[in-house]
């Protein structure tokens, strides 16, 4: 049997081109496997071969979604592959969104089976898990060793058109698809077993998990902006120079609360970013590019807004868990509410 032809998509970092300063790297086609592709090649053995690797910068992809997608589809169309693999992206948000977007396009427009891998909290996972198989990985590249065999096994099944088992057996994120099968035990018996476990306080697994629609309805609009207190919050990691509270550059364990009374402009000498997930040079040069204090001060002087709240709240939204972010915001939202803030502008990088 001939080998399956696989095309692999990776970002600039995994291609060894560079970090954030090269995130604008345009799509590029290379021969053979690169970076994580060599690990896949090892796991495939003689069953499949990565014939081409596509490299694209994360910022380039996300800032030029339409154009990037068309360029990549053009490249992939020429190859006549049996399978398309992207990532794994772990908890890298832009990389995850890129992997999901391109897999979705390849599957829909070229009809080639696709596979990617992500950490369950990656925004790309929420966006695409119902549309494709996304192998559940760890949150960082340290999870590569575990992700590769799972992805490779699933990849070979997909390329060969073999049936795919349940998410819990194959290791992908549940996408909500259901398959009929015969259980060993009757429903009544399973239900009573579960009930008994529940009564005894033992762990049990529901057969019908409720979907988690965590949506918050919008609050009413601000009636009179000229009397409103406007507060600034950012996940872009803006902090006073030298990051006094040492907010981590990724996977932040805390947020900062900084007084801006009398501050009219964030300058290179006074503020910087602690965020390790984007090229910091622009924000370090002028942090107003992320946290627009200068403009809000002008609007305050002109009477367009009532007042700029005298503090801002900040953290680095870089691989920071949803659980931590939720806790941070619950805490500072209470302070904002107690101080009668009328509206929050939250900026993200």
């Amino acid at each position, binding site marked *: 049997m001939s080998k399956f032809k696989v095309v692999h998509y990776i970002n600039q970092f995994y291609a060894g081109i560079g970090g*954030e300063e090269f*995130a604008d790297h345009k799509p590029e086609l290379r021969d053979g496997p690169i970076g994580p592709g060599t690990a896949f090649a090892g796991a495939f053995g003689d069953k499949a071969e990565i014939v081409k690797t596509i490299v694209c910068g994360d*910022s380039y992809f*996300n*800032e030029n979604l339409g154009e990037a997608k068309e360029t990549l589809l053009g490249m992939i169309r020429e190859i006549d592959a049996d399978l398309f693999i992207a990532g794994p992206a772990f908890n890298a*948000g*832009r990389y995850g*969104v890129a992997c999901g977007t391109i897999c979705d396009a390849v599957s829909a427009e070229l009809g080639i089976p696709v596979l990617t891998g992500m950490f369950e909290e990656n*925004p790309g996972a*929420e*966006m695409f898990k119902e549309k494709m198989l996304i192998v559940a990985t760890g949150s960082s590249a340290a999870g590569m060793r575990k992700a590769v065999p799972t992805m490779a096994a699933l990849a070979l099944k997909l390329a060969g058109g073999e049936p795919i088992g349940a998410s819990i057996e194959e290791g992908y994120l549940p996408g909500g698809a259901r398959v009929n099968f015969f259980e060993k035990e009757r429903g009544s018996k399973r239900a009573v077993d579960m009930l008994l476990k529940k009564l005894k306080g033992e762990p049990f697994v529901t057969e019908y998990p409720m979907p988690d629609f*965590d949506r*918050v*309805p*919008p*609050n*009413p*609009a*601000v*009636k009179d*902006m000229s009397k409103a207190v406007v507060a600034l*919050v950012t*996940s872009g990691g803006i902090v006073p120079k030298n990051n006094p509270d040492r907010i981590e550059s990724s996977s932040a364990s805390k947020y900062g609360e900084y007084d801006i009374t009398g501050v009219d402009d964030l300058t290179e000498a006074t503020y910087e970013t602690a965020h390790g997930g*984007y*090229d*910091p*040079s*622009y*924000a370090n*040069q*002028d942090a*107003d*590019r*992320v946290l*627009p204090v*200068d*403009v*809000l001060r*002008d*609007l305050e002087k002109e009477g*367009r*807004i009532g007042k700029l709240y005298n503090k801002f709240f900040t*953290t680095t939204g870089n691989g920071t868990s949803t659980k931590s*972010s*939720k806790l*941070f*915001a*619950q805490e500072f*939202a*209470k302070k*904002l*509410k107690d101080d009668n803030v*009328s*509206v*929050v*502008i*939250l*900026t*993200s*990088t």
Partner: protein
Amino acid sequence: MVKEIERAGIPVVHICTVTPISLTVGANRIVPAVAIPHPLGNPALTAGEEKQLRRKIVETALDAACTEVDGQTVFEVNV
């Protein structure tokens, strides 16, 4: 963070570059930004032009806050 602020009863406008992420996360009032490393700026412009651009985005956000919405809404910046 957007959702927790909204849940606390304060209207919140999310200014971000990758709006699909914001939609997935569940922000209700969304204003698209310029680029990931400089959402409210553009180093290619002069300082004056750049501040003007930033002001437009912030004003769009303030207008968004003054607009009643019944679901997720993206407010484009008129350049």
